[in-house]
């Protein structure tokens, strides 16, 4: 009414958006960190993260040294889950060696050269042929529970099979029909060889997007507060809400660019399939960005310095990453912790990305995680906008 009229909201928004985009793009280092770094991290992540437990280093102490004991040792290692290491590898092959014993196996475990030791007792072959039951000892380094479970299961499974086959053969030799036998034929869908990258890359995209958008927004706004530049802009006719949206818009664009880059890298470098409709992934990404940017905004309104907002950002990012199901399955968590993961946006976005890319899920299948993302994103963003306006208005 009085004085010059404010420009329309659209003009204001466009002006702020232009300024922010220019400011962000002009900062080469920032652009590198926002675009190139996530891509680089995905490549490292993709190659580093491997859930397949194989080539577990094993010391074989063959105190029998007969053809039979050597045959079993070789067959035990045949599928590649266990890998023979240490001097035991050559010595035991070369000559029967009764002096090398459990003490040496323990030393190898202590020093971390081996993760398991298989000790074949003296007279193993002779006792087996004579129908007595020799005892094979397997000592496992339990430090890494995942690896020790696999190593233990491989050894006990192999010797269990040998024992069962022998028992059946003896029954047959005694003239009786062996009993029925069950076998399991697995057929694995979506990722038949159970490669880690197709599973990890969609999750990694969720993590990197979180780190880039939340912490950068939180710190960027805290920096403006430190320098007083927000107040300067507010002296102009631009409204706080418009300023807020204009500031956030570049990060939405960067977030989408990052997702596209990561998915492309996943497809071309790691063979991640793209089975679902991309539109579902896009809607999911938009709702997810609403949350991550909203949290960044909220943090900036409660912290005074960049250091504080960085730490607060981390306090949000770390639990969100750990409880997202990206690194370890949600089903393995205790019940109360599983309940908490429902309010974790990373969990839902990782679910959307994985299900869409790998399983080919569309909007119908993803209704639950998408709705959850919309709910969380809407609530967080609304709260952030209100707080931001009261802080500046």
């Amino acid at each position, binding site marked *: 009414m009085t004085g010059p009229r404010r420009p329309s909201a659209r003009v204001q928004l466009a002006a702020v958006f232009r300024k922010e985009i220019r400011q962000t793009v002009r900062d080469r*280092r920032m652009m590198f*960190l926002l675009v190139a770094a996530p891509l680089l*991290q995905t490549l490292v992540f993709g190659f*580093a993260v491997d*859930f397949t*437990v194989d*080539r577990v280093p094993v010391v074989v102490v063959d105190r029998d040294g007969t053809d039979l004991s050597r045959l079993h040792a070789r067959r035990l290692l045949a599928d590649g889950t266990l890998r023979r290491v240490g001097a035991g590898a050559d010595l035991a092959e070369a000559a029967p060696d009764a002096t090398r014993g459990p003490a040496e196996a323990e030393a190898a475990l202590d020093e*971390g050269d081996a993760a398991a030791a298989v000790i074949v007792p003296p007279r193993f072959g002779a006792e087996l042929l004579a129908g007595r*039951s*020799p005892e094979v000892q397997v*000592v*496992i380094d339990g*430090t890494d*529970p995942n690896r020790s*479970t696999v190593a233990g299961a491989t*050894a006990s499974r192999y*010797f*269990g099979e*040998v*024992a069962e086959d*022998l*028992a059946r053969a003896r*029954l047959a030799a005694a003239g*009786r*029909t*062996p009993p*029925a*036998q*069950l*076998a*399991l034929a*697995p057929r*694995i*869908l*979506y*990722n038949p060889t*159970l490669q880690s990258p197709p*599973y990890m890359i969609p999750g990694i995209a969720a993590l990197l997007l979180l780190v880039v958008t939340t*912490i950068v927004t939180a*710190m960027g706004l805290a*920096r403006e507060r430190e320098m007083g530049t927000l107040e300067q802009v507010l002296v102009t006719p631009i409204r706080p809400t418009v300023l807020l949206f204009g500031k956030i818009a570049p990060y939405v664009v960067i977030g989408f660019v990052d997702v596209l880059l990561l998915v492309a890298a996943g497809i071309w470098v790691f063979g991640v399939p793209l089975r679902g409709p991309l539109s579902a992934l896009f809607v999911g990404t938009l709702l997810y960005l609403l949350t991550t940017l909203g949290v960044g905004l909220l943090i900036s309104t409660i912290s005074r310095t*960049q*250091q*504080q907002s*960085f*730490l607060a950002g981390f*306090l949000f990012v*770390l639990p969100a990453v*750990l*409880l997202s199901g990206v*690194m370890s*399955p949600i*089903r*393995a*968590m205790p019940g109360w*912790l599983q309940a908490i993961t429902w309010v974790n946006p990373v969990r839902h976005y990782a679910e959307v990305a*994985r*299900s869409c890319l*790998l399983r080919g899920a569309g909007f119908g*299948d993803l209704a639950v995680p998408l709705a959850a993302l919309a709910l969380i994103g809407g609530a967080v963003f609304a709260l952030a906008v209100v707080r931001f306006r009261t802080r500046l208005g």
Partner: protein
Amino acid sequence: MNDRLRRSLVRVGAMASKETLHVLRDPRTLVLALVMPVLMLFLFGFGVSFDLDRVPVAIADADRTPASRELVRRLTGARELVSAGEADPADADRLFRRGEAAAVLVVPSGYGAQVARRERITLQLLADGSDVVVANQVLAKADALVRAESRRLAGVDLARVDPPLQVKLWTRYNPAGRSALFMVPGLAAYILAISAVLLTALTVAGEWERGSMEQLFASPVGRLEIVLGKLAPYLVLGMLELLLVVAFGAAVFDVPVRGSLALFLVVGFFFLVGMLGQGLLISVVTKNQLVATQAGTMSSLLPSLLLSGMVFPIENMPPALQLLSRVVPARYLVHALRGILLKGNGLAALWPDLLALIAFAVAVLALATARFQRRLA
């Protein structure tokens, strides 16, 4: 000479007490720096576990005889797998997409009759391979359960024969296979990497941003003295965090301390010095808090999470990454801490780790101080 050293120490002390005041006057940062380790330990200890039970498996029983129902009851009755209801094999896709089941077990028609005829029977398991961890476990569990069931079916006959071969499994160091014992040493490295690198990077970059670094240079305090004085309080904070993590790990997750506590502190000290030096180097190069955090995340946080062997074994990585992991100090810390805490290793087994940590600390501090000095000339 002694006098010069004494005066120099006084100046370092003055810098350190100024920096300590900064930290103490900002209780939010202090609380966050001390709460974060406890929170993370808590989450890691409870949240990061790869051991699943009660995995939902849908059942497609095409036989529907008492024998097949008995089989299903036995396979889903244990703690490992639970039934997610009846399903048609054709529904597998829909079930997996909605996350309602992790696998579908198909019992062939004629199962009961085949058991009676003592034949070899193949059960089919359709597994959702999109979640690799879950799929691996479902396959292993189902395989073990089917074998057990096979033995049970055979029980009467095979029991008459002596077991031809026995296997005795022993697990050392962590017999219960608890993830927390595995995680806590790794977590210590991770927490120290975050707080040491990032806090120093932020605080020093902050001084550049605000221009107060130039004021410091105008004072009689030397460059090296500034560096040492600035790092000292964070060194103390880092050591506090390290002790907090181990104390909390011992109290809540029963993480043992089998080796020497002194060696533990020495190893932790050199790792911290290296991390602080890295933070300093980053801040000198970037001079900007925002860029410094991202650079710190890239160069310390992710490598110490991914390439340290904390969660993912180094042996499984491609050779290039294994080589890269050799310059990640967290790798040596994780190895040394696991050795000290879980195995009770001494210096005899761990000297290569300690040496590597010292080498890294010396190299990075020298580089940072050199850059720092050149920057101002």
